[in-house]
């Protein structure tokens, strides 16, 4: 076998090992490779900054632990950003999820797994509420759009929603200004689009997206989706933006993790591109059989 043929057929185990070598060290010891904030991330940030005073925002955790490594940074930074907006503009935040696996991730975000998060004086039940898991997928979304109390009678801790001050003014989808859905599949944007947006076509929608899901969102932007965060890259960009307002988020564990993910994305992509180039060089230069 010639050198060129060897280059064209490198054992996959070699590639796996090299991927480990370029990803693992930078995850644990980030090297702070530079990054440029994309327009999508900046628009996501600006849309949250532009939420009118007193508006109700729904933050949906439609993901599970599988999506957490990529979307966790987005969840963490979005929640922290919303807490700053509660502090600055008095917005109201309703947290919920249509994925059963997302319910535990909501308290994990603010209760101390990566925090504790600076809630900036926000009061539970008055400024924000965690409704937890709402069953039924798309049907559950439809119910919530028509009757929030009926769709979810109690919050995550079992308190009657009808006794929570914030929920007195959140009865249907018409009372919601913005939906921020951090999601990794179905139910997700398509179902919100059918059940929420069609009932209120002025609803602002922001998405926290997996990198592989981006093509599915692009046709809906900017008419229905105002912007989305593209995967782990978007998460690290957004954390750096939120970090300008809340420096603690950059110094925290999630901030450091986001920088590591950013570095790992760069090194792994570069490795793949190098190997694609090597494979093609081998393909074109190997001797051809006649």
């Amino acid at each position, binding site marked *: 076998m010639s050198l060129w043929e060897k280059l064209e057929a*490198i054992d*996959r185990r070699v*590639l*796996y090992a090299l*991927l480990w070598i370029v*990803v693992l060290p930078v995850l644990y010891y980030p090297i702070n*490779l*530079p*990054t*440029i904030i*994309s*327009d999508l991330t900046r628009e996501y940030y600006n849309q949250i900054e532009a939420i009118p005073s007193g508006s109700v925002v729904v933050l949906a955790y439609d993901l*599970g*632990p*599988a*999506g*957490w*490594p*990529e979307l966790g940074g987005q969840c963490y930074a979005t929640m922290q950003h919303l807490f700053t907006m509660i502090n600055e503009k008095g917005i109201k935040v309703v947290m919920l999820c249509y994925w059963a*696996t997302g319910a*535990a991730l909501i308290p*994990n975000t603010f209760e101390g*797994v990566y925090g504790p998060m600076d809630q900036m004086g926000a009061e539970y039940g008055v400024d924000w509420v965690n409704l937890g898991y709402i069953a039924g997928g798309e049907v559950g979304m439809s119910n919530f759009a028509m009757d929030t109390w009926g769709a979810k009678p109690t919050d995550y801790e079992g308190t009657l929603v009808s006794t929570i001050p914030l929920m007195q003014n959140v009865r249907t989808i018409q009372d919601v200004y913005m939906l921020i859905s951090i999601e990794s599949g179905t139910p997700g944007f398509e179902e919100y689009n059918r059940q929420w947006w069609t009932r209120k076509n002025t609803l602002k929608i922001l998405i926290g997206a997996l*990198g592989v899901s*981006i*093509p*599915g969102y*692009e*046709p809906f932007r900017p008419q229905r989706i105002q912007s989305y965060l*593209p*995967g782990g*890259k978007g998460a*690290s*960009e957004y954390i750096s933006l939120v970090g300008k307002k809340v420096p603690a988020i950059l110094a925290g564990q999630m901030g450091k993790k986001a920088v590591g993910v*950013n*570095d790992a*994305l*760069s090194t*792994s*992509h*570069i*490795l*793949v*591109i190098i*190997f*694609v180039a*090597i*494979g*093609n060089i081998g*393909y*074109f230069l190997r001797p051809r059989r006649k």
Partner: protein
Amino acid sequence: MYDYVLSALDGTMYSILAFFIASGAYRAFRARTAEAALLLIAGTLVMLGNAPVGGVIWTGFLDINSWIQRIPMMAGIRGILIGAGLGAIAMGIRILTGRERGYLGGGE
């Protein structure tokens, strides 16, 4: 159970994708034909645009990545969505009019 079993297993399952994608890209991205070469070039440019360091190497990668996603890719996705929508409508009409009975099961 959730934090130490489900989270670890779920995260592991998803992260294994990185290895398969890397290996798959190395084997599949060969410029064997003109179409494959086009796919290879587009794929490489999108990878460079999506990698955080790509924009630092040359900001043009970000613009090219954005253009590929906004114009050709979106056209393809729209085609798929419209095709699937029309297909669902056609299937619905066939079922409603009794022309499609496969969902009932059974043989001849």
